[in-house]
């Protein structure tokens, strides 16, 4: 194996930054329209990002050999996922919204990883343009930055299949189109379509356009940034229902959604994960509703809030409603479990993902069959297809790493001075890309991301990133075997 192709990585990162600079045009135009005073900061951020991007592409990436090996995929993934959010800190720093680089990085990573954890105490006092930028970062990160990379690699004429595989092999779903580029296009189409419909509905149900834009970005990407410190409490009931429905949709595999919306129903085939997702949603919402009712809330409120809350938790969106400050114990318990389970594979949501849970359950059941019948040939099947043993092992490794991530994260946070419940809640909420602290406060503690020590903030940032890129890329670049292979 030759030397590690760092020039290619520089080239790709450079390209990504140029695109990011282009993306900053959207918040900039909002800023210009609203005269909120952030236009210079945003303009400068865009120019600066563009400059770094051009430098990286034209000097760092000059003469890059346009080929890479499977084992380098993790490096590319990591480089992109670190470089983009780092440059994404510029608007926070230049507008003065973040008091330190740590805060800016926390906010930026939280955005791109669609976590939605925030250190901004009073978002309503931030300039409109910055709010839109913040929500927009979630939207960009929603489908995963790797999809952008895939598009860029195609331009470079490199087989992007490797990266696509490493990102989406988990769903075992056939591509939406024989050609990778078309599949990616179709996913983006679905995503944009969802956002546009939601935006329209929100404006129709009486939201301010700028808020509606931010909320739509936050919902569809299952991020969770809000534009007001009181969460979504000032929304009309109509808007709440719309948001609930779209949170639920966003937790579904995008390929399934594409086929659903384009009426290719036959092609969806058996989709056990969707059935489980909806079943779990209905069951959890029913229990929550009963618990709210029992603690003396009105029926209409209980139904609406429990649907909203469970959709928000399962999709790992993380929106919260301050109307129901005191959760009965069952609601907290269910919430905690759902945070870890997360959404469907192939969706914008985070967490372990239901598909993996199904595989684990089936494997465990098979294990007992094997105990009684030692010679039995049993296979884990999802959607009537056998899940290869290799993949089952990967799921086990993943879940182990996930739990270990929560445990180690919680341990380290406790050392930073958090109480144990707070630490566990924060670790799991951030690795699952759920986010916002007010939601977690209902689980018991009184935590606030803004008041955490710097080390704890960086720790949470790392957890968000790990959860978002599904751990393996992060772990593998720290493993000695991987180093020996690629450098």
């Amino acid at each position, binding site marked *: 194996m030759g030397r590690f192709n760092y020039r290619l990585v520089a080239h790709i990162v450079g390209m990504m930054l140029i695109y990011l600079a282009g993306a900053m045009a959207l918040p900039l135009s909002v800023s210009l329209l609203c005269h909120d005073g952030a236009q210079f900061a945003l303009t400068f951020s865009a120019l600066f990002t563009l400059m770094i991007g051009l430098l990286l592409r034209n000097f760092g990436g000059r003469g890059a050999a346009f080929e890479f090996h499977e084992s380098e995929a993790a490096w590319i993934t990591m480089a992109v996922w670190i470089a983009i959010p780092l440059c994404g800190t510029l608007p926070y720093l230049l507008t003065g919204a973040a008091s330190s680089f740590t805060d800016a990085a926390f906010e930026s990573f939280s955005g791109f990883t669609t976590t939605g954890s925030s250190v901004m105490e009073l978002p309503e006092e931030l300039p409109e343009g910055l709010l839109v930028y913040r929500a927009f970062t979630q939207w960009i990160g929603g489908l995963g930055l790797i999809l952008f990379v895939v598009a860029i690699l195609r331009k470079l004429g490199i087989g992007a299949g490797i990266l696509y595989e490493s990102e989406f092999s988990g769903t075992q779903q056939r591509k939406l189109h024989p050609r990778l580029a078309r599949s990616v296009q179709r996913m983006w189409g679905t995503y944009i379509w969802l956002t546009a419909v939601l935006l329209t509905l929100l404006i129709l149900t009486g939201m301010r356009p700028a808020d509606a834009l931010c909320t739509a970005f936050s919902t569809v990407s299952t991020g969770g940034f809000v534009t007001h410190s009181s969460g979504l409490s000032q929304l009309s009931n109509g808007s709440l229902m719309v948001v609930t429905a779209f949170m639920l949709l966003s937790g579904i595999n995008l390929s399934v959604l594409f086929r659903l919306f384009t009426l290719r129903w036959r092609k969806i085939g058996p989709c056990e994960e969707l059935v489980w997702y909806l079943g779990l949603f209905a069951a959890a919402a029913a229990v929550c509703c009963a618990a709210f009712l029992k603690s003396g809330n009105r029926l209409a409120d209980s139904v609406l809030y429990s649907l909203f809350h469970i959709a928000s938790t399962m999709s790992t969106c993380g929106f919260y409603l301050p109307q129901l400050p005191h959760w009965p114990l069952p609601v907290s318990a269910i919430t905690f479990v759902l945070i870890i389970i997360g959404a469907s594979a192939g969706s914008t949501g985070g967490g372990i993902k239901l598909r993996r849970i199904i595989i684990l359950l089936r494997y465990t059941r098979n294990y007992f069959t094997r105990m009684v019948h030692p010679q039995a*040939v*049993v*296979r884990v099947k999802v959607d009537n297809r056998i899940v290869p043993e290799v993949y089952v092992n990967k799921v086990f490794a993943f879940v182990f790493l996930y739990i270990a991530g929560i445990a180690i994260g919680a341990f380290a946070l406790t050392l930073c001075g958090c109480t144990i419940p707070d630490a566990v809640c924060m670790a799991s909420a951030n690795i699952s890309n759920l986010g916002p602290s007010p939601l977690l406060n209902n689980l018991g503690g009184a935590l606030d991301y803004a008041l955490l020590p710097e080390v704890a903030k960086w720790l949470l940032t790392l957890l968000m990133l790990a959860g978002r890129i599904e751990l393996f890329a992060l772990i593998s670049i720290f493993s000695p075997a991987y180093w020996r292979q690629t450098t």
Partner: protein
Amino acid sequence: MNIIIAGDGEVGFYLAKSLTELNHNITVVDPNSELLKRLESETDLLTIAGSSTSPQVLEEAGVGSCDLFLAVLHDESINLMSCVMAKKLKAKKTVARISNAELLLPRNRDMFLELGVDEMVCPERIATKEITNLLKNSVATEFFDFSGGLLTMYLVRLESDSPVLGHSVAELLQMYSTLSVRIVAVLRNGMTIIPHADTVLMQGDLVYLISRPNQADKICRVAGKSEAEVKRAMIVGAGRIGRFAAQTLEETLRITLIEESRPRCEEAASLLKETLIINGDATDIELLKNEGLLRTDAFIAVTDSSETNVLTCLHAKRLGVRRTIALVENTGFISLSQDIGIDTIINKKLITASYISRFIVKGEAVSSKWLSGTNAELIEFNVGKWATATRHTIRDLNLPQGAAIGGIIRGRETILPTRDTQIKAKDRVIIFALPKVMDQVAKLFE
């Protein structure tokens, strides 16, 4: 009838032999000239060495004037291709043997008709159907519906506690006056007997009887065993038949499937949902016991080896499994296996031949079934308008030895005939006949 058979495998060989006996003109096409030589020396037919997908070979075999083209090689794509070509070269009717049951789906039917494949036969699928039918209806070891279920044929074995042992057929009908049955044949020690009124029934006789449906429990009492419901079944061998059978049965029964080869287990695992698949040697009785052989109601042995099937079935029988079904490919084994107590023998060749014979029998035949254990055949005829049979009562009909009338269907009405019954035009008649008299019988109804 001019018939071309492509393929000299087991099915082809058997078909060729039995069709020659029925006085058809058979031409066999196969690439293996050695096998053909052997076949030609044993049977009166024409053989042509060559590929059935070569137009020249087909022409040589006289495809232009052939009434029926049967492609029964192992490879289904060759069969389909041969049929397509034969049809284009003016064969009247083509039948292909296939192994992928998906092709049989009704929605694919038109596509194959258009291509020129008139009928498709999947031996494994037919065998599976037999097995599932047998388990559905536990009184009869073999049964078959006529005219969409108006009449049913049962095969029962007379057990030691049967009340009719030592009695004649006429006495039986007197003893059970409420039971409307007609006994068409008795199989005793491998011999087929067409019974008279005074034929005495003995223990171990396999009795073919025709009756109306839903008589199962009454017939059960005659036979001397109580009807037992099958809840668990063990299938040995995950070849195509084993897999198909498990797939069909697993919806209603608890199935354990045992297979020695790992890849076959994997294949079964991807197809089946509920079945417990065990990778192990079926001749290892300890393994079978551990996997619940003693609690099994039915034992189905369908491995590739007839010997294994017969032996494991015997073992299961001895350990008290009530119903045993064995796949026996070696036709010489069939009567032997039935003698030693295996309930039912499935033979792919026989049932495939039986199925294919539907396309061959002259006259107005609607459906037919060849019976295992005997070379006799059950055929359903539509009686022609001017048929000889309509002129006399059955007593005066001069039915040849080796043939019996099992039942008559007139509109929606069913008649179990006596000697004084008169057959009318447009009736449907079920005939039990040995092959040598089949032509004579057919003439009666034309």
